[in-house]
């Protein structure tokens, strides 16, 4: 008996022609309708450019000690002044953006992606798998992000890969929870039933049919996590548990001498503080606007 193959609707499997044009139009529309989000995106783009071009943009080696320029005020030679070792604050900020983005992106992409896979898997399989996975997630969710990250760094040690891991782990359940709720609705869609009927394996259904359809909440979580991850990295470094001297990192620039010299050399604390605030603000603005743009209910309002 011949079995007729039912064509499977794969919503996001292949991009239709003119995709670039549609993306450009969507970007233009985003910039017009969500100005603040566009400002956030612009700051993020600048941040990326600064991180990529750090060796070209920085006037000084960020780790070079120059005792002749200790605690120098902002001037033409050192636009944002120097720290207690005579290191140029601007150069350290520029190179610090690499650390912030590396840890921020590493932790949030891994955290959101692993969370998405677990969330979709949990929704797809349901039953006991869903029950047990969600209870494990509940345990992790009971710890505030920074507390769990602190504990993990204390256990793993404080290298950059460990820092990414420590910030990533608390993000997984947060991502899984949100993505699962979207995936539960998608699980009931006819194209998922069709895929099952066509005899596709679980992995294919989850990865090729369900995951692409939770991209909207995934992207929203990702942008929200980026700001949080940058803040968490700065917090851990400030507490001495993150990136270590002499590596340039914004949180690290805020600790130690920056506190002791807060009255006599305030630039040591002000500029890294501004950099952290601005980047987190930019990611949050962009994330909020992206959420609004991708949420059909808000889009119609």
């Amino acid at each position, binding site marked *: 008996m011949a079995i007729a193959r039912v064509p499977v609707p794969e919503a996001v499997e292949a991009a239709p022609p003119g995709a670039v044009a549609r993306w450009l139009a969507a970007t233009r529309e985003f910039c017009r309708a969500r100005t603040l989000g566009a400002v956030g995106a612009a700051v993020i783009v600048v941040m990326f450019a600064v991180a990529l071009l750090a060796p070209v943009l920085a006037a000084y080696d960020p*780790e*070079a*000690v120059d*005792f002749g320029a*200790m605690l120098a005020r902002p001037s033409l030679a050192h636009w944002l002044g120097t720290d*207690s*070792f005579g290191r140029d604050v601007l150069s350290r900020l520029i190179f610090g953006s690499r650390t912030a983005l590396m840890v921020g992106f590493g932790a949030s992409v891994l955290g959101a992606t692993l969370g998405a896979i677990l969330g979709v898997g949990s929704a797809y399989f349901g039953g006991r798998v869903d029950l047990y996975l969600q209870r494990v997630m509940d345990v992790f969710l009971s710890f505030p992000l920074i507390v769990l990250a602190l504990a993990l760094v*204390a256990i793993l*040690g*404080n*290298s950059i890969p460990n820092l990414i891991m420590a910030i990533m782990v608390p993000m997984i359940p947060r991502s899984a929870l949100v993505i699962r709720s979207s995936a539960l609705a998608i699980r009931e869609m006819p194209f998922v039933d069709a895929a099952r009927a066509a005899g596709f394996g679980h992995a294919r259904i989850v990865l090729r049919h369900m995951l692409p359809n939770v991209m909207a909440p995934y992207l929203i979580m990702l942008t929200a996590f980026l700001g949080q991850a940058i803040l968490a990295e700065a917090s851990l470094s400030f507490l*001495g548990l993150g990136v*270590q*001297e*002499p590596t340039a990192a914004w949180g690290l620039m805020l600790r*130690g*001498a920056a*506190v*002791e*010299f807060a*009255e*006599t050399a305030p630039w040591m604390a002000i500029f890294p503080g501004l950099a952290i605030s601005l980047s987190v603000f930019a990611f949050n603005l962009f994330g909020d606007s992206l959420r609004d743009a991708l949420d059909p209910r808000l889009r119609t309002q």
Partner: protein
Amino acid sequence: MQARLARVLTVAIVLLLVAMPADAQDKPRHGGELVFVVPSEPPSYDAHQEETFGVIHPMAPHYNTLLRVDPNDRTGTKPVGDIAESWTVSRDGLTYTFKIRRGVKFHDGSELTSKDVKASYDKILKPPAGVKSLRKEAYESIASVDAPDAGTFVVKLKYPEPSILLNLASPWNWIYKADLLAKDPHWYEKNVMGTGPFTFVEHVKGSHWVGKKNPNYWDKGKPYLDGYRAIFISSSAAQVAAVRGERAMIQFRSFSPPERDQLVQALGNKIAVQESPWDCLNFVSMHHDKKPFDDKRVRRALSLALDRYEGSAALSKITLVKDVAGIQVPGTPYATPPAELEKLAGYGRDINKNRAEARRLLKEAGVADGFSLVFKNRGIPHPYEPLGIWLIAQWKQIGLNVRQEIIEASAYHPMLKRGDFEVAMDFQCGFIVEPDLDLPRFISTSDANYGRHKDTVIDDLMHRQGRATDLEERKKILRQLEKRLLDEEAHVIYTLQWHRIIPHLAKVKGWTITPSHYLNNQLDAVWLSE
């Protein structure tokens, strides 16, 4: 001519008066409560088994020791009697006989005798099973202690040891009551009963420790204070705020240079600052079993890379280090004269020449340019972190690529003991500046020889200096030891001598800084001018 002489004499007298310490011009005043900050709390009340100033600072005023270091001696190296009224030394240098003061009473009213001194030293030298004594190894030269009568205490040595009197002036060797020790050798871990100038009132954990004047103190007229209150504050910013707000008058460990400057700026002439070289030092240990640090050329190169003089001038503005020094605190009897110090590898003034030699040595040892190593440092802000940044920048100058790994303070010593490092920050802090007390960690068999060097020459030199009774002879041996340790073999790399900075309210009088934060904490001579 006579008129000129008179003028010169007048100027000299005026200068002398101006230069005289304020204390010498003031008469001690009775009354008042001294409030001071202690950055750490006592783990137990028994100084014989503890090693933190968190025990000494709040509790030393309750006790006396056999000898003490002269509280007015800024070098902290002159022993004077405390419970001992006087002492004699036999001609062969093997028997020390101490006359114990009469009329010294414990705070419960009972009289102190040599039996109490002997019981206390028995506990230190030969602690009963289950009782810790951290310093028993420091008294290996002692053959026996005895109390032939109530007023005499005798110490017999196996061999003459020039440092024994200073060792007996240890601020840790509090005299306990023999009867209490006989009943329970652990009694002093949780209780206080001494003969000191202040009696115990209360200890509220995490908050404060209070003592009040002992009206029956044997040193008549002392103490001057009615009492004291030690407040426990771990945060250095909060400590500064306490002194700045005049809620505390002094902190006896040290503040950092920026903290000192903040206080001076805020309080003006209400604050006085005492500073001294500190008998503490960070040095770099290199694991001798790990390549390439088994090669003395590499170790010497790491020392040659350091511009200690520039480091001293700059780092002394931001952290607790200052002097460029050898194996003893500058200004003390066995300190290295600067001219001799400059002959050691890495101590010469021509840094370009030093670094060129360092690069040559690394090349000769087969260490490539850009060689990477991990430097393990302790997670304590001052002076570990600034020193770590400085060392890494210095080593970069000779082509080394160093990554710093900060180890949390409580995990730090276990890491050193396991030997789980290539290059690590190490630490030495003494209570009295004395080679026998400061240098035993460099003997091959020492448990604190974390770099695990094996050097019989060092061992022999340590042995010989400890027995040299002639001062000049001992200095000569110490210079040889220093050259071997820091230059020829470069077993360790000395950084910079710590520098102790005590800003205190100017009304606190009668206290003199010494090179040790373990010394001069009995508070018997301290008084408040208002």
